[in-house]
């Protein structure tokens, strides 16, 4: 994985020193909260319901065992013994004290991590496919390109005060594990007819208050020119994005209002001006970065089979293990969704254990998924059972990937100052209702996503079943939506009907699922496919009568 050079380290260290001084001045009342707030937000420090919350960037969801160990230590030392992995592949700490934040950031900087640009109207953490570099179905490793984007976007002087926040996702597979069409810019690496590598460019996707699926504005931009093309996109957005209305300030609104064709024309015109300036990274710089993502020392003699004689292990393999591009290896997903647990939460001890297991079984590297799970991407097949045994002992081997209990949930009103309703208890209640593994496996792939407010951090628009918590005259109420997807078949879920109470929405979800089981063509027909085939009516009938 990428290691900081002297410039990366100097930038991050300097930011820690700067923030330490800013905190000192705030605590001495030399600057007001109004003056300080934008400064702390630039360093990922929010004030939430109970305390300060720190959001730490995990570039393209990749971190080393050493970094994970430090994250666990920070949870114990500065927080209350746990952290929360987010839908943007980051980690958040919920109980941070302002006076300790500079020391915390210094500990992060010592392992090449930071919280810069995890808030504010700037280019946020670059997200990517959690299987990148190991996926059997990718055309190339997208991480060097994601890293170049990280470097390009970090402290970019022109794009530090955009009309609104800006999110970029990169993938390299036809099977979209990064929800690229639901980002401000989605980049899909692919080959053109001549076999050259380039990006398909999606712009203007997003969830939130006004969800849109991003249109393609360019089918192919060579990898040697994608940075300048992104620069052109950002310039057009920076020039014409709505700064007068926060609810209309995202690039998706601009693309929608002027149309994808006109937006594309403007980007191409801007790029025509930029392209001769040679803003793209020199080949040597790309090669320097790419070299740091060289494949690890895979053992060519690793046996390409898995002993499935342990039935519980075999179930986990069936659900949480994916194909690897190298024979003898597999990709293992660690579920952070134990039944009744809090989606995405991991204790300090669990983080430290995963760090140890990464060192022992997966070349000391870990990935965070946007579904709030963790991944060991390079595990020998003959070591999967040992890994599973260690995970199971720490309640980390729930075999539920992409099943009904593998629920995405934002922190919701239990933590978040923006939320209108709680998300986590709803996720817990649904998971408990469907705890029986046989029932989960019978239902098959079913992605439930829960947001506690219209900002959609829980991706409810992209849920096969989406749940949005709202405030109805001071009471929590939950809207049910069906038919969303964040995968390559991206679609936006549609509201089914009137909302429910906390208990009522769990019953409604069960009615929807039982209706699906009754009408599916066969057990192989996924919920999403059945919904698309029959439409909403049978589900409305099941829920509302």
């Amino acid at each position: 994985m990428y290691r900081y050079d002297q410039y990366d380290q100097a930038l991050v260290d300097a930011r820690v020193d700067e923030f330490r001084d800013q905190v000192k001045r705030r605590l001495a009342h030399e600057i007001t909260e109004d003056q300080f707030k934008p400064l702390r937000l630039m360093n990922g420090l929010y004030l939430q319901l109970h305390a300060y919350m720190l959001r730490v960037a995990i570039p393209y969801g990749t971190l080393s065992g050493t970094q994970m160990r430090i994250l666990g230590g920070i949870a114990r030392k500065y927080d209350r013994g746990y952290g929360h992995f987010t839908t943007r592949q980051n980690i958040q700490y919920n109980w941070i004290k302002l006076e300790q934040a500079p020391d915390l950031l210094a500990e992060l900087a010592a392992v090449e991590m930071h919280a810069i640009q995890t808030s504010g109207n700037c280019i946020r953490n670059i997200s990517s496919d959690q299987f990148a570099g190991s996926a059997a179905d990718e055309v190339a490793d997208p991480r060097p390109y994601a890293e170049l984007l990280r470097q390009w976007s970090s402290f970019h002087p022109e794009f530090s005060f955009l009309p609104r926040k800006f999110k970029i996702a990169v993938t390299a597979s036809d099977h979209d594990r990064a929800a690229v069409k639901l980002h401000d810019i989605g980049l899909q690496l692919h080959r053109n007819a001549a076999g050259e590598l380039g990006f398909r460019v999606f712009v203007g996707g997003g969830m939130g208050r006004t969800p849109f699926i991003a249109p393609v504005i360019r089918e192919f931009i060579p990898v040697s020119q994608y940075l300048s093309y992104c620069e052109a996109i950002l310039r057009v957005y920076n020039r014409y994005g709505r700064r007068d209305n926060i609810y209309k300030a995202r690039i998706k609104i601009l693309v929608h209002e002027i149309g994808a064709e006109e937006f594309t024309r403007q980007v191409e015109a801007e790029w025509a001006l930029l392209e001769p300036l040679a803003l793209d990274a020199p080949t040597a710089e790309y090669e320097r970065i790419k070299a740091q993502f060289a494949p690890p020392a895979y053992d060519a003699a690793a046996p390409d089979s898995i002993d499935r004689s342990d039935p519980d292990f075999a179930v986990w393999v069936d659900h949480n293990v994916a194909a690897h591009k190298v024979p003898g290896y597999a990709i293992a997903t660690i579920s952070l969704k134990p039944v009744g647990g809090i989606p995405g939460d991991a204790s300090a001890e669990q983080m430290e254990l995963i760090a140890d297991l990464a060192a022992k079984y997966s070349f000391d590297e870990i990935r965070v998924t946007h579904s709030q799970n963790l991944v060991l991407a390079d595990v020998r097949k003959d070591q999967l059972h040992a890994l599973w045994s260690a995970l199971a002992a720490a309640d980390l081997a729930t075999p539920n990937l992409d099943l009904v209990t593998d629920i995405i949930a934002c922190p919701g009103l239990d933590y978040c100052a923006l939320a209108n309703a709680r998300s986590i208890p709803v996720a817990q209640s649904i998971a408990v209702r469907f705890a029986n593994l046989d029932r989960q496996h019978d239902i098959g792939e079913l992605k439930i996503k829960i947001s506690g407010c219209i900002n959609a951090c829980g991706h409810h628009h992209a849920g096969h079943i989406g749940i949005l918590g709202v405030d109805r005259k001071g009471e929590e109420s939950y809207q049910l939506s069906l038919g969303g997807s964040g995968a390559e078949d991206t679609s936006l879920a549609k509201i089914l009907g009137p909302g429910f109470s906390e208990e009522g929405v769990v019953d409604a979800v069960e009615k929807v699922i039982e209706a699906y089981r009754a009408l599916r063509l066969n057990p192989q027909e996924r919920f999403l496919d059945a919904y698309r085939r029959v439409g909403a009516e049978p589900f409305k009938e099941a829920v509302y009568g």
Partner: protein
Amino acid sequence: MIRLLTANDTLTGDVIWWSGKGWSLNLADAVALGAEGDALLAEVVAAENVNDPNIIEAEAGSPPRPRTMRERIRGFGPTVRADLARAAAPHPDQTKAA
């Protein structure tokens, strides 16, 4: 309904309640504001010693029960982590799963 003055501590971010003499971490110490409430809030806002000061409504009691779920969560802690509850009393909105 009574009215309570609340804020977050600048140093720690903790939820704090106006006790009549100063700020307390315990909701049970919160005092009902009288006619002086709005002036007190204006004074606290102007002083900028705490973050996000605000007046909320609550049912009288010991501790008072804030009217909205948001303020009850601020007062008692997350409903999903009984171990992180602020008050000795059970969270009024604690979920079974927690």
